[in-house]
């Protein structure tokens, strides 16, 4: 009662901690209907008080203030990172090392698959300890193992149930308590006395921490004859027998073969015959770095001297000054800016130079500094020819097989030339000629032509023979050429060289030599010549 009135008084006076600065504090006699919502906890365990209305209450209630809600937020719990018990920073390498060395640490809970956390928690839950005094009744007496029931059973002393439970107990007790308790009764306690007598001095030393040999001298067995190298299971030495199968040879790897070749040419020095993994990795890294360096240097050079100067390396025909000042001057003079001059320069580039510059053509070696692997070394890495794998097949290594020509990428033939070849199309001039001929000399010329055509030049035998041979050859070759029309197109001189002997008369020696296919042409009528 006293507390209650004090509480009421307190409520009136002790308004210190209450925050007035909040918004709606009204002194209106009306209770406004602000309804706020949040979670509040009321102190528990309050002694009950007798609630009494008194005048005090009435007086204080009139001055009662309405308090406002304060929102006390729960402190945000920042998750503390899992302490790295399973890894540490290796002092040697500076890398994160797993402590056990076997594997990386198992990822934390955030990464476990669904349901693992609950299973782990279930598995980690401690086993219940404690032994029960009662025993199960297996459905016969529900509630028999409750404590209060047991008390009342004892009081009421129903003999039947007690007896039955007593009789059940010895049988059931083993079943009731599950495994862990039984095992303790089955342990036999060994005496520790006997061991103390049987301790040798060696064991004593060991136990007491005094210096002792590794092996108990009484137990130690003498070292036997060492095993021969064949018997050793970790036989390091190479066997003297030759390998009975090629499959036992060293497996080639790109890196190792390259390195071996480089060592043979003397570019690098290896420790032994074959490069080790370390050396392989080392030289690979070095190659990579060198390549990067080289590329960077090239880029830097390009930036430094400007594109025209840089690319003029591949345009031999560009003799002008390519420095920046010259370009600037040229620009001022002619108004052609750098790009235009660059285009101008590239117009002077030949296609071979272009292909060298682009580096796409495999026939042109890109890097003169590239190490040439020997054939067997190449075969080790990339394998031999898949079609003709045997050694006996000899090919001319420099022969360009199946080279279709520089415009092979345009497989569509030039139709006009093809048609011309086959006589389907004639040029305009020829057509006009023919038309002109047709109009004017129709009747007369044909007789003359026919006569001229039919006339056989009866010359000397040699000439005849040559002529006929030449004619035959020319015919043959013409036919040949007409079949390989593309070859004909690419080598225009073929046409001309064959067309010549028809027009001219007897040839000079040079012409004859030029004209002949090979020297066998002259072998025909050799005995006739003198």
């Amino acid at each position, binding site marked *: 009662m006293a507390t209650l009135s004090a509480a009421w008084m*307190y409520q009136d006076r002790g308004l210190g901690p209450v925050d007035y600065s909040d918004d709606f504090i009204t002194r209106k006699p009306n209770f406004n209907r602000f*309804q706020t919502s949040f979670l509040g906890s009321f102190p528990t365990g309050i002694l009950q008080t007798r609630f009494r209305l008194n005048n005090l209450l009435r007086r204080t209630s009139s001055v009662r203030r309405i308090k406002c809600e304060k929102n006390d937020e729960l402190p945000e719990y920042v998750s503390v990172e899992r302490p790295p018990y399973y890894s540490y920073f290796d002092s040697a390498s500076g890398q994160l090392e797993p402590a056990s060395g076997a594997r990386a640490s198992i990822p934390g809970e955030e990464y476990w698959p669904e349901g693992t956390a609950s299973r782990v928690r279930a598995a980690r839950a401690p086993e219940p300890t404690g032994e029960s005094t009662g025993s199960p009744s297996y459905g016969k007496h529900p509630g028999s193992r409750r404590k209060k029931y047991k008390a009342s059973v004892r009081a009421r002393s129903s003999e039947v149930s007690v007896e039955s439970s007593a009789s059940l107990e010895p049988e059931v007790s083993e079943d009731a308590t599950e495994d862990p308790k039984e095992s303790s009764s089955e342990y036999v306690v060994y005496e520790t006395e006997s061991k103390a007598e049987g301790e040798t001095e060696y064991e004593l030393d060991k136990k007491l921490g005094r210096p002792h040999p590794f092996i108990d001298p009484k137990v130690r067995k003498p070292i036997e004859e060492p095993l021969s190298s064949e018997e050793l299971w970790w036989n390091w030495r190479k066997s003297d027998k030759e390998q009975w199968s090629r499959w036992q040879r060293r497996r080639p790897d790109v890196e190792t073969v390259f390195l071996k070749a480089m060592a043979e040419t003397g570019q690098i020095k290896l420790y032994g015959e074959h490069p080790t993994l370390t050396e392989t990795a080392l030289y690979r890294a070095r190659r990579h770095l060198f390549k990067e360096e080289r590329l960077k240097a090239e880029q830097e050079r390009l930036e430094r001297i400007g594109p025209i100067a840089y690319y003029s390396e591949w345009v031999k025909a560009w003799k002008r000054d390519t420095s920046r000042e010259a370009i600037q001057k040229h620009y001022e003079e002619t108004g052609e800016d750098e790009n235009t001059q660059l285009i101008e320069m590239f117009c002077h580039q030949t296609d071979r130079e272009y292909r060298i510059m682009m580096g796409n053509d495999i026939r042109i070696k890109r890097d003169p500094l590239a190490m040439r692997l020997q054939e067997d070394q190449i075969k080790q890495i990339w394998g031999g020819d898949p079609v003709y794998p045997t050694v006996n097949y000899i090919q001319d290594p420099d022969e360009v097989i199946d080279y279709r020509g520089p415009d092979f990428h345009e497989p569509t033939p030039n139709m006009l030339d093809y048609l011309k070849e086959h006589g389907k199309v004639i040029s305009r001039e020829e057509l006009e000629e023919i038309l002109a001929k047709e109009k004017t000399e129709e009747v007369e010329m044909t007789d003359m032509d026919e006569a001229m055509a039919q006339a056989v030049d009866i010359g000397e035998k040699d000439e005849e023979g040559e002529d006929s041979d030449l004619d035959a050859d020319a015919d043959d070759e013409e036919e040949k050429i007409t079949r390989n029309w593309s070859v004909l197109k690419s080598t225009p001189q073929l046409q001309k060289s064959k067309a010549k002997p028809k027009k001219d008369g007897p040839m000079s020696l040079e012409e004859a030599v030029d004209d002949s296919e090979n020297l066998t042409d002259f072998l025909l009528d050799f005995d006739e010549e003198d």
Partner: protein
Amino acid sequence: MAISVPLHQLTYSFFSNPQGQWKWCAKPSYSFSNNSQNNIRAIKASVETPPFPLFQNPKLEETPADGLEPADPDFYKIGYVRSMRAYGVEFKEGPDGFGVFASKDIEPRRRARLVMQIPLELMLTIRQKLPWMFFPDIVPLGHPIFDIINSTDPETDWDLRLACLLLYAFDQDDNFWQLYGDFLPNADECTSLLLATEEDLMELQDPNLASTMREQQKRAREFWEKNWHSGVPLKIKRLAHDPERFIWAVSIAQSRCINMQVRIGALVQDANMLIPYADMLNHSFQPNCFFHWRFKDRMLEVMVNAGQHVRRGEEMTVNYMHGQMNDMLMQRYGFSSPVNPWNVIQFSGDARIHLDSFLSVFNISGLPEEYYHNSKISSDEESFIDGAVIAAARTLPTWSDGDVPLVPSIERKAVKELQEECRQMLAEFPTTSKQDQKMLDSMKEPRRTLEAAIKYRLHRKLFIDKVIKALDIYQDRILF
């Protein structure tokens, strides 16, 4: 939203007993407020602390202050072996029965904390609707119990089905319920009114409830007689040799059944479940915990509310039934509470009080469905407000019309009328609350059902008392 009301963990009336035995274990026990008007005071026996604990062996308390002893270790062990787990809680037994108590502090977290998990294999579950499916499926196909279950009415006889299943489980070898049944309250301890005698029902002083219970008893007995007649095979007969056992099983089924919507496999179903350890949780109107069905591995999880601060030794409670009066609680579970915020008084007449002012007098906020006491507004310790006041706020006839202010004189008149009605209702009872209390005090070893019945009417009267008092306070505080 939690109603902040002073609660005791367990309220006991410790009565000196010449025999010195504690015999009252009401199951399910419940927690209610201590603010009853009578002189019930929880006597806290002070524990003697040794003066110099360093020099003496720490003594294990045999009987702790509240009379709570740890439950039989086998109780948890039989579940643990079958992969049931309890995290941070322990089972204690007191004079009123079992309870689940926190064994360590639980900080308020955004996430609900898991406290117990019980696998499906330990439960007895029947789907509520046809076809009745059992999880786990312990009923063999040809067993006559199956026919008995089939013969029940799908709408209403869920408790009979569960009772049959429970009895069958008791009979089945290596069923968990054979072991767990030893910890269920037996017929003497069970407070369910199904086991009540006629005089207990008369003590209720509530004719409706009494008649309902009589009907239920009749129904159960008839069911037993129909299905356990003398010609029935032994398989069935040995399940329930006498009707009392069957009625006990029905009472257990009714009071400990948890109705949940669970998903098993692809099927989402409403199921009546008897869940072993979760039914040891007691009821509270401001519960700590709730049930959650984990579909993934078919576990029922008992989880602490998110943001709930649980101290060590606090009782874990669940809301059994939401929004029901004391008589429903009594009918189904066999207990009642004076602070039931859903208690209803039927007022006749036109008297109405202003709702908003009533609520603000007592600092009750929230929607009508979820009134709670907003203790942040009222910083002083008001131990008066509890569930009963909230129930009063709900059940008193009120008017509320926007901004229209109340007229104090009319309000006072209304208050007086309502109080008069309440007093009339109190007068209608044959006994007063004081007499009831005295009766409870004086009874030495009452039957559980009798005790529960007396408590029921006591709580009813306390509630009406509280309503009167609340109206008094309201009357005082109208004018500011």
